[in-house]
């Protein structure tokens, strides 16, 4: 995987936007159609894996990605706790879809960050030497 294939680079460049679009679609429509935060996040993490396959360069600051992941988890916990304790959904029933989309978005962010960290950690640091 050390040779930089021109063909792979170009085709990956074309594919990126579609991967992002598909992941975001899956997250945004998770509450009405198959998919959801977890699956959409896994699709989003495929961006960085595709990036590794075309150019195996370490360009991410993994500590920052980890902070982002933890922030997403914290925000998700706060959101769910507030939603349940404040009882907004009993008075305003139309707020539920927005809550679901927001929660899915946070889950997707967390999963994408987590999978990216696992993959990059594995690909660049773990070896027998």
């Amino acid at each position: 995987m050390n040779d930089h294939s021109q063909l792979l680079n170009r085709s990956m460049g074309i594919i990126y936007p579609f991967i992002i679009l598909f992941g975001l679609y899956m997250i945004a429509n998770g509450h009405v159609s198959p998919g959801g935060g977890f699956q959409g996040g896994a699709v989003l993490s495929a961006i960085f894996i595709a990036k590794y396959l075309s150019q195996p360069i370490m360009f991410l600051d993994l500590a920052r990605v980890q902070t982002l992941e933890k922030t997403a988890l914290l925000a998700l916990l706060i959101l769910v706790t507030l939603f349940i304790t404040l009882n907004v959904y009993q008075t305003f029933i139309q707020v539920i879809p927005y809550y679901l989309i927001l929660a899915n978005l946070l889950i997707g962010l967390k999963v994408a960050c987590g999978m990216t960290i696992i993959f990059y950690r594995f690909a660049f640091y773990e070896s027998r030497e």
Partner: protein
Amino acid sequence: MLEIALILIVITSITAIQTRYLRQAVLYLGLFSMAISFVYLMYGAPDVALAEAIIGSTLSTILFIVALQKYKIYTIYYALQADELEENGQLSIHKQQLIKTLEKFCTKQELEAQIIYSTEPLEHIIAQHQYALILVEKNDVITIYAHPENYKFDSLKQFLEIEAHPRYHYEFLKVEEDIL
């Protein structure tokens, strides 16, 4: 359609176990994931099917292939006497032939041979270095010590039985964990 997918699951899982090359086994596992995600879809669980298709057949396949890429270097230590190394690294024809045979084995197994000539004693190499094989020569008998986690050792034995050396005889030993 469902029956075809179910039969495909059985076939791919058996071939994944039975195949000789790890790389092919990984690909069969990817196919298996694809088939089983289709089965989930037919049973009315599209969410599970999506997760299985993404994680099982894409992410884990790539992870396995990257792992195999990392596992490819096969380190062979050749323990020599000090006077044998001094002649400008010129080894005898028999030794060169032995090295060539081992390199042939590695090419056949999709591995990259890394051969290190060493004058250190055997115990020192076992304790200090990362190795797959250690060759020790004594009175035309080559003793091959293998690392306890060396999963290619049995195929190496079979290979060397077919490719006999004109001068050397082989003896195979597996380094036990408790010696380390």
